[in-house]
């Protein structure tokens, strides 16, 4: 079975501080994604990766950066967190079909 570990699962931080969320997969899936989920907006794509050092922007990428130095790890960084980035962040990997994503358990971030 595909496995994803997100860390941290919960974080409270203050406005202006940097935050990095980590997504670790146990298999060599090529595509990895970061989504955020907010009430009234559903899930929105932040960034995705299609290989080591290959990343691209999603629909809500402003204020976020990503890195993928190893196949198994996909990092999401908020350089200077803002209250509007309070959200639940989900990492996902793409399985067989064009839209078959396997999601992690989520990381709840609160920016005060």
């Amino acid at each position, binding site marked *: 079975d595909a496995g994803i570990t997100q860390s941290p699962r919960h974080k409270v931080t203050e406005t202006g501080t940097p935050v990095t969320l980590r997504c670790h997969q146990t298999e060599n899936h090529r595509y990895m994604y970061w989504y955020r989920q907010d009430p*009234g907006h559903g899930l929105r*794509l932040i960034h995705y990766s299609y290989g080591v050092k290959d990343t691209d922007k999603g629909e809500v990428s402003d204020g976020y950066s990503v890195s993928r130095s190893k196949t198994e790890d996909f990092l999401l960084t908020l350089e200077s967190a803002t209250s509007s980035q309070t959200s639940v962040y989900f990492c996902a990997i793409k399985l067989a079909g064009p*839209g078959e994503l396997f999601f992690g358990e989520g990381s709840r971030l609160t920016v005060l």
Partner: protein
Amino acid sequence: GESVGLHLPTLSVQEGDNSIINCAYSNSASDYFIWYKQESGKGPQFIIDIRSNMDKRQGQRVTVLLNKTVKHLSLQIAATQPGDSAVYFCAENMHGGSQGNLIFGKGTKLSVKP
């Protein structure tokens, strides 16, 4: 299946009845549609998908119907069980190919009454 403001559309059904969850999608060029289920406190879970060249696809207790004329997607759950209680999202793959970038709808909350 689209929400208004912060409130999710809610569907309440009796255990054992059939459920129908609806979704309107936005892009007539989308070629792939997917339904996800999200239980409280968990990540979304893939249920079933359908390509744009199909009208209907069946899985185990679930059926997805696609009406491209009116850009409408529905998920039918047969003999709904308490374990089906969750938020259901439709999603479309607007780019096709293998990228898997999805646009999600805002979700419908299904509550199953025992």
